[in-house]
């Protein structure tokens, strides 16, 4: 109930004139969409208490934006002497480029993409500028991370207490699709000041990858909302062509197509029907999983969730590696 109400409110804010406000707010908070919702509903007649809650959410959103932009700026200062491309990703990128997808968007960690060859230098520069390793970097987890993951082990800033994730590609090296990191970097777009973001089509490819290939769909409603906002901002024939092309190039066409179908289904996103294809039976399972949140913020549909959880690990690593990983975890 909660998630369905949330999706309806985002898609058509004027339609939720009388609703269970507690359920809407509870679901929005659970899905990290309270900021986006608050901005979507700005100016519409809602009960006074609801307006206060939304107003507080809009203000907090502005503060998160300030913090996200500042983290990006401090990373820029630390990495400027290296003269390597530093590409912002996810929420930080939306804010830095002032995209429509940044409205109300909460941001946690700073995510950046850098060339694989520069990883050591980037890590050293960040450590020199006040960031530290989060986990104990000894033994299995650190080795595993560095060898197979698409990012450095996370770093946290000593005084600001904010995390930075340094990626060198957008999917773990153990996953089946193998995106072309060099192409992502070559096609990236410069922002004023020196930082960069991915090309519009690649932002969506990354979103789709992140949504389906990298996780168990947790946070899916927000990822799809990002995709909805991005597609609406960029939509035009040239963009549609580059989206198709880049999705193929990064071996992520099925993911992008599914993301477009689900965004269209939930949020009415105007998608390239010829590319996206028809809504499938499997899509219905994904949709059910995405909407498995009630008005109290609880996740429902346990069996479905478990199936997706197993799937997410299956996708991250081939079966033998998964067995080895679980064995070592059990022993350790």
């Amino acid at each position, binding site marked *: 109930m909660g998630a369905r109400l949330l999706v309806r409110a985002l898609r058509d804010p004027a339609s939720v004139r009388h609703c269970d406000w507690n359920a809407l707010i509870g679901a929005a908070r659970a899905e990290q969409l309270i900021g986006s919702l608050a901005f979507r509903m700005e100016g519409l007649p809602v009960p006074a208490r609801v307006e206060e809650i939304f107003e507080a959410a809009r203000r907090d959103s502005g*503060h998160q934006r*300030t*913090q996200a*932009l*500042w983290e990006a*700026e*401090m990373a820029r*200062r630390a990495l400027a002497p290296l003269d390597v491309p530093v590409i912002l990703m996810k929420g930080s990128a939306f804010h830095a480029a002032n995209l429509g997808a940044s409205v109300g968007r909460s941001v946690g960690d700073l995510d950046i993409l850098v060339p694989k060859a520069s990883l050591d230098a980037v890590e050293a520069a960040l450590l020199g500028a*006040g960031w530290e390793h989060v986990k104990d970097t000894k033994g299995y987890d650190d080795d595993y991370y560095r060898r197979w993951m698409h990012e450095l082990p996370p770093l946290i800033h000593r*005084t*600001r207490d904010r995390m930075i994730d340094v990626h060198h590609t957008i999917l773990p090296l153990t996953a089946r699709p193998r995106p072309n990191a060099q192409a992502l970097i070559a096609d990236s777009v410069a922002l004023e000041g020196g930082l960069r973001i991915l090309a519009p089509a690649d932002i969506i490819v990354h979103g789709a990858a992140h949504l389906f290939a990298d996780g168990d769909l947790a946070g899916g409603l927000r990822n799809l909302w990002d995709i909805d906002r991005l597609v609406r901002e960029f939509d035009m024939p040239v963009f549609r062509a580059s989206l198709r092309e880049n999705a193929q190039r990064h071996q992520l066409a099925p993911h992008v197509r599914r993301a477009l179908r689900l965004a269209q289904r939930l949020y009415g996103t105007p998608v390239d029907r010829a590319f996206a294809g028809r809504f499938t039976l499997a899509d219905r399972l994904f949709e059910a999983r995405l909407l498995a949140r009630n008005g109290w913020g609880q996740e429902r549909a346990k069996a479905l969730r478990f199936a997706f959880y197993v799937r997410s690990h299956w996708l991250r690593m081939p079966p033998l590696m998964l067995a080895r990983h679980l064995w070592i975890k059990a022993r350790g």
Partner: protein
Amino acid sequence: MAGPTYIADPEGTVLGVELDGLTALFHAPSGMTHIVAPPAPQILDALREGPADAAELLRRLRVHFEFGDDEVIHARLDELETAGLVRRA
């Protein structure tokens, strides 16, 4: 004393409030609050006249203040840089 050139954020981006001998600073670009002691606020004011290296800063500061030890300025600039209140050009 050649060294890096520093830049401070423009007027209006930092709010300062005197609190019995110390200064509380609100730095709008970061949303962070810092509590600083002299000569930090004076260094920031001096930098607002334009980018400068340590030698130039000392020259500007000496117009208004007594400045004993030259070396002190390097430590203060490092702290201000770490805090994000100044950056290198």
